[in-house]
């Protein structure tokens, strides 16, 4: 058997994995009966259908008339393994971190963030993980550092993730967007967001 359609191969595996995952997690909840369905009934049925569909797509990869190579998009196994290992260690050592008080908490936060970064960085091209990381950073910096600094991080990092990076242009863009968003979001729409770092 020869793999003809790499896209179908991965899609099939993905659907089978997701279906199985839902079935396994569902098994923790009560099933109920057809008359009184428990929380696990519907997801288990759907998960079963998902596995079946995934299997068909998977096997179609070997007979497909459309040809795609197996490496559909850049994928770095090593980063997935590293991210998983790091996340696992942090999860396992949670009590150790909590014993250390506030610094331990921050450390755990940071390591979890790093593990997540490794996961995201394992997929796809450069723009994917740089841009998505700038987005995540924005989300977590917005409250402690305020809108202006978070915007600076988002704009500069995401612009760096593209193909061309012209510093002057990016700075002008940042200033314009920062002014615009402070005026519309904070004064206009009155969203409860700080403009500057919350020092209090």
């Amino acid at each position: 058997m020869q793999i003809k359609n790499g896209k179908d191969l991965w899609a099939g595996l993905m659907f089978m994995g997701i279906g199985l995952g839902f079935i396994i997690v569902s098994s923790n909840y009560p099933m109920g009966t057809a008359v009184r369905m428990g929380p696990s009934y519907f997801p288990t049925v759907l998960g079963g259908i998902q596995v079946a569909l995934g299997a068909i797509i998977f096997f179609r990869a070997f007979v497909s008339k459309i040809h795609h190579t197996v490496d559909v998009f850049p994928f770095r196994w090593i980063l997935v393994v590293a991210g998983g290992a790091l996340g696992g260690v942090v999860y396992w050592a949670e009590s150790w971190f909590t014993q250390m008080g506030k610094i331990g908490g921050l450390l755990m936060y940071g390591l979890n963030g790093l593990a997540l970064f490794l996961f995201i960085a394992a997929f796809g091209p450069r723009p994917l993980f740089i841009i998505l990381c700038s987005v995540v950073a924005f989300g977590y910096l917005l409250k402690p550092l305020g809108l202006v600094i978070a915007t600076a991080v988002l704009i500069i990092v995401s612009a760096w993730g593209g193909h061309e990076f012209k510093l002057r242009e990016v700075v002008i863009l940042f200033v314009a967007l920062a002014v615009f968003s402070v005026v519309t979001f904070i004064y206009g729409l009155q969203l409860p967001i700080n403009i500057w770092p919350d020092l209090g």
Partner: protein
Amino acid sequence: MEQLFINLGIGFGVALSIQNLLYCLLGVMLGTLIGVLPGIGPVATIAMLLPVTFTLSPISALIMLAGIYYGAQYGGSTTAILVNLPGESSSVVTCLDGYQMARQGRAGAALGMAAIGSFIAGTFSTAVIALFAPPLAEVALKFGPSEYFSLMVLGLVAAVVLAHGSLIKAIAMVILGLLLGLVGTDVNSGVARFNFGISELSDGIGFVSVAMGVFGFAEIIMNLEETGKSGAREVFVKKVGNLLPTLQDFKDCSGSIVRGTLLGSALGILPGGGALLASFAAYTLEKKVSWNSANFGKGAIQGVAAPESANNAGAQTSFIPLLTLGIPSNPVMALMIGAMMIQGIAPGPQVMTERPQLFWGMIASMWVGNLMLVVLNLPLIGMWIKLLTVPYRILYPAILLFCCVGVYSLQNSPFDVLQTALFGVVGYIFVKLECEPAPLILGFILGPLMEENLRRAMLLSRGNPMTFVERPISAAMLAIAAFLLLIIIAPTVRKTREEAFVED
């Protein structure tokens, strides 16, 4: 009939208030803006603006969001004609003849005809909604849980049938959407499902996060991955001359506009339909029946008029299933349901009877919005052209910023932003594996509803699954769903379906 005019009177009364006129204007201008800009669509924009609509009254919010959707259809054609790039996916076919017309120096006529055709289609389809929505809602009020379950099955099957590419992958995406929709607290038992101990997930995965991640972020990443798109686009026509098509153009196009409008209106009502399908189908039809078919692809004005009328008609009539049944026919409608739920309105047939102001106000606003588009857009075309020269490398950080602020402000939670970023990765993988995300979104919004109705139906029938085929309306809908699946599996249909999408 008399009742219809009374209702429309109520509607125009609501739509013509100063406040609602302003939001309508804002909506259609924003819609045109994102329609003009390639690389950002109405789904991402509406998702971005959902948090903003919190602060508005329900009717103003829905008027504005609806304006974005049909405004985008107008804007998309401008880019298609002038730059040969579809500003919106529903304008893909407009490029074929519109750009050729621009090269022959007839950009003004093409733009003018697109706008006029859209306006005629918009007027007609508004009337269709006003005429057909009330009787349909009345039928829907009699639906029990079995009927609703079967209706959702039909809706999802139709969405799958009309999706591009592989049928089986589209079904798998629907199921995945349904499963993701089930994450969170189960209403019947109170059990928090699939939340992996993350408290933020006990309310379910945020709909905005899924939509924005899978459609918005993934799209930006795809645009950046394909090199060259980050630079400035070349605008073919720097200055558009006479915007009014000649009398001869009108004569040539009248048939095309009528056919496009009728076909678009019909296809918009179908579950899974909407602007995109309508424009493709109208172009294909026009190519077959027009006397000028030999010139198609070489700058035939009919090739602009028909799909542009059809996409506008389709965009509007796709509100019918939403307003009468509470079932979304495409991702934009799914977002509209999200907006209604944020405002505390349960979508469904009762909206018309319980909130006539909202229902008829929205319908009236669509006509008002179309009028605004035709009056305002033609003179503003110069401004839109200037916008097109803004390079993508400047646009996308701005788009990202608005997306992020929008998602964050939903619940003031960084977790929502993280979730959206993760769905961006997921969306990228979907695109690469050729899995169309639209069915996923529909499944996602219908997941909990489907489970709920299935449970109720089974409870009422004491566990007898025959209830779905013994009740006539339910049986009919399941039969149609099965029929749709069967014909799509039949080889002949499959071939034409592949041909129809080959131009995409």
